[in-house]
Each structure stands twice: as C-alpha cells, then as structure tokens.
C-alpha cells in the first residue's frame, strides 16, 4: 500500500515533527521503499500465530512500594530550556492565543 504525501503530513502531525514540502516528498519516497521491503512479511503464514511483544516470559515484575530517593528539583530542572527556578516554563496552553 503506497503512502501519499497527504498521509505523510498526517503522520508528521501525529509524530509532532514539522516537515518542509521537500521533506514530505522525500519521506513519502523513503517510507514507500522501506514498506515495500517490509511487505515481504505477508509471505509468512501468520494465521493463528501469537504475537511476541517481548523476548522473555517475565510479566508484571513488582517491587515493594517504598519511598526512595529521586532527583532533586535542581537536578530535574538542570537541563530544561526554560524554567522559573521551580518549574518548567512553556507557552500558554489555555486562554487567549492558545488553542493547541
């Protein structure tokens, strides 16, 4: 199934990446070429085969719910692009001018 440029734009929005028109064209080409190869999976008889999400059999590893040391506020904010000293600062997301 070929991917159109329209689909590429939709996927880019889902993935939260801004693409130029040129990139939309080249990613459409790349994705079609890669998915063309990947389609060889359809040659396998997969009816009734159970999916594998994870190589080991372990599920739901639990530990005691205890308080443990974590990052300090200072450490957590250390690499932030913008902070007010106590929190991450981002553009306004509600109210006037923010409809995202």
């Amino acid at each position, binding site marked *: *199934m070929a*991917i159109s440029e329209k*689909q*590429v734009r*939709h*996927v*880019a*929005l*889902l*993935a*939260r*990446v*801004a*693409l130029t028109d040129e*990139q939309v064209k080249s*990613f459409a080409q*790349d*994705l079609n*070429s*890669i*998915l063309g*190869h*990947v*389609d*060889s*999976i*359809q*040659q*396998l008889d*997969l009816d009734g*085969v*159970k*999916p*594998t*999400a*994870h*190589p*080991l059999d*372990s599920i739901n*590893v639990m*530990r005691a719910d205890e308080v443990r040391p974590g*990052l300090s506020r200072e*450490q*957590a904010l*250390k*690499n*932030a*692009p*913008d902070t007010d000293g106590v929190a*991450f600062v*981002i*553009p*306004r*997301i509600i109210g006037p*001018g*923010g*409809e*995202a």
Partner: protein
Amino acid sequence: MRLDEYTRLSATGLRRGIVAGDFSAREVAEASLRTIEATDGVIGAFNQLTPELARAAAEKIDEARAQSVRSGEDPDLALPPLAGVPAGLKDNMNLLGTRTTCSSRMLEGYESVYDCTAARRLIDAGALPVGKCNMDEFAFGSSTENSAFRLTRNPWDTERVPGGSSGGSAACVSSGQVTISLGSDTGGSVRQPGALTGTVAVKPTYGRVSRYGLVAFGSSLDQIGPFARSVEDAALVLRAIAGFDSADSTCVNIPVPDYTAAARAGIADGGVSGLKVGLATGLLHADGCAAEVREATLKAADIYASLGAQVDEVELPSATHGLSAYYIIGPAEASSNLARFDGVRYGHRVSDPSDILDLYMRSRSEGFGPEVIRRIMLGTYALSAGYYDAYYGQAQKARTLIKQDFTRAFCDFDIILTPTSPTVAFKFGEKSSDPLAMYLADIYTIPVNLAGLPAMSVPASLCPSTGLPIGVQIIADYFAEETMFRAAAAFERVAEFKCMPAGNHSQ
C-alpha cells in the same frame, strides 16, 4: 614504557602490571589520554573526553594498591577485576560529570543527572572512564555517519566507516586508544561495528545487563555489551556489568557465572570437543553476502570440526524475514521512546514558539537529524489507526516465528554460526543515500535481537582482496553466555587474528 606498550596490553595484562607495581593506574590513564590526543583528530571516536574522571578513578586504584602494600595484603586480592583499564562509553549512557548527547543536536550539552547502571558497574570494577564515544544519532544507523557531530573513521582504513551505531566504541578499542568499551545493541549496533573493526563484540541475552540510564531506542530489543580485543577481556567486562538491577524491571535475577573461566575452558585441550555447532548455511546465500565473508564463515565451521566439535547445517527459515519485522518493531518502539524529546524538560527548544504545538513540532524537527525523523515517521505510521494490525501486529507475529526457529535449533545445537555482517567495512557515502541498503548491513544480527538471544562477533580473518577484518557471529541459547565464550575462545586461539591494525593514526 612507550605509549603503545600500554595500549596494546589486554585488560588482564594491565591489571597484572599494576598489581605487580610495574606501572601505576595513573600512568595507564595518561597513556590512554595521550594516545587519544595524538590519534583522535583522525579517528574521531570521542564526543567528549573526561580526563578528570579517568584520573580520579586511577588514583583510587593506585591508593588501594598502596594501602594493601602498607598493610601487607596481596594487591591481587585488593584490586577489582578491571583495575586501571581505560574504557570508552557510548554517548547514550548517562554518567554524572559527563554530557550525554546521543550524537544529536537535540541533546547537545545535556548533562547527566544520574548514572547508567552498566557504566557505574564498569567503573566500580576499576575501569578508567576516559570519554564518551561517537555513535549514529540516537543509535539509528550502521555506519556512525548519522552522528550530528563528527565522522568516526575505521582504524583499518580511514576512508571507511567503523560500522554502527556504536562506531566510536568500536574504533577506540580497535585503534588502541582504550582497552575496552561499552556499546548498545538493538539490531546489531555492537556486533556489526565489532566485525568491521576486527574487535570482539558482545550482545548479551536480553535482560542480562541492566538498561537503566541507557537512552532507550527499542525497549524490547536494546542490550548493553562490551567491545574488547580478546574474548577473555570481553568476558571479564560482561561479568562486571551483568546482573540484577531493581531499577530495570526487564533485568533478570539470575546469578552471573564466571565468564572468564568459561573462556579459559574453551582454550583448554578438548575445550569444544563434542560441542554441537549449527552452521546457518541458508543465510550464507542471502542477497548481498560477500564471497569472502561466506568463505570465512565456512572456514570457521572447519576450525570447529578440526577441534572435535560436531558441525551440522541448521535451518532458520523465518530468519530472512527478521529485517522486515525489525523495521516495524524497532521504529515503533523508537517513535514511542523519542516522544519524550518535546523541548520542555530537556533538549533543544525552538527559539520563538507561537504556541505549544509549534514548540513541539519545530523543536523536534530542528533537534533531530533526517534518519531519526525517518524512523519516528515509520514507527508512527506503523502504529497509527488503520495500519496497526497490518504492520505492527504482523511484525509481532513474525517475531514469534523467528523466536521459534531458534528455540527449535537450540534443541539440537549448542551454538549457531553465521557471518556477523554481510560485507567488510564500506566507504563513507557508499550506503548513506539509500536507507534500505544501510538497513541490510544488519541482516544477520537483527534476528538475534528479535529473539532476545546472546551473540557475539569474533574476528575471523582479513579479507584477501581488501585486507579488512571479517567477523563471525556465534549465537547461543538464552543465558548460555558461558557456552558462547567457551566456543569463541576456542575459535580465537586457532584463528590467530591480531586485533589491532598496523597503521599509525597520529597527526
């Protein structure tokens, strides 16, 4: 001693010299740092050097030795297993006091706020952390050409790639800048550069080594593993970093055996006699496998037969579909893992966002390189409404068949032998314009990650036409790393491969 006399020693050789008092750990640290200074302008293995961390670790070793001598103790008992061994760390492993960039503009200048368990264990075992190694951006690639920062050159031929994504970790060990290093392997990112640089390179069983503090790519595929110039050194490093970690729920609580003892058992007389070796003959005729690589693999099988092992053909009918399954599952997991890079808590942020959506979208397109965006797009598409079953669902089922192939094979065999990479090291630019051609570089390594098995690349020979190293891959059953090291050491002794190129890379 001359510089290259330190840098050519094995990890055990360095430790022995330090224990005996022939030289200090500090001297070894300086020798490694000076070698890097002289050669890294050409090799380009490192994104960041950490001389202060290496010197502090060396002083600790020298102090421990002095203390043991003062108190009349045997320094051999007082010093840890990797005492004074210079080490490189792939730049996707967090370590306090270092930047962790994943060779991406997105994380340029990111300072670690905690330690990766494997890196911490390596240092606790006495290793000297000399720096962070270049890689394909976020580990997406097989040549290290996708680094946002620099080219890493193959020490065997500086016009060629070192492989990837752990290309810096491979090149620093191969060129003798350090003795050991850590890389991460999601589809072959330790083993393939190992083969291309003539180094011993290990991907442990999924769950054997903690992934805590490793920047995640494919969470059901990623494992950290060592590079070294001998099987015994690689075994020593794996023993140091393996084992349970409560900070990684996929890290299993199974005792860590003495892998070096297993390697030594392999070189003893009759070390592999009766070992059942499966030669994956079908895979040798896959498209794109070079004749020299095929011959080296067949010769490896002959070596095992000559050592008394039972060599037979093994069928892995679904393995050829591994690449297809991987290029759905890997990107799907990566697209989820990389969602965290949103320009809010860390990483690159666009300078003039109009609103939060614009902040996310442009911060990500500015911070990520083209291959990262390609994988995110591929993964997002494969997980999107309407396509999930056709792609992700089918790939997960194919993964089951691949795993079953191996499970069946290990009823009859102790190890499986394949090439590591279909070709020797290729030239810069040879595959970088065609994503699919680059993906094919991992055709032999990918099925192993999908199944979660342990495997390693061992240098076999030099390609007769190019003089470049060829590696063979030894795959073992789940948590059967001892069998793998035993087989690898036996092969290494007969193959007599010299793990360092002759060239001088000083400027």
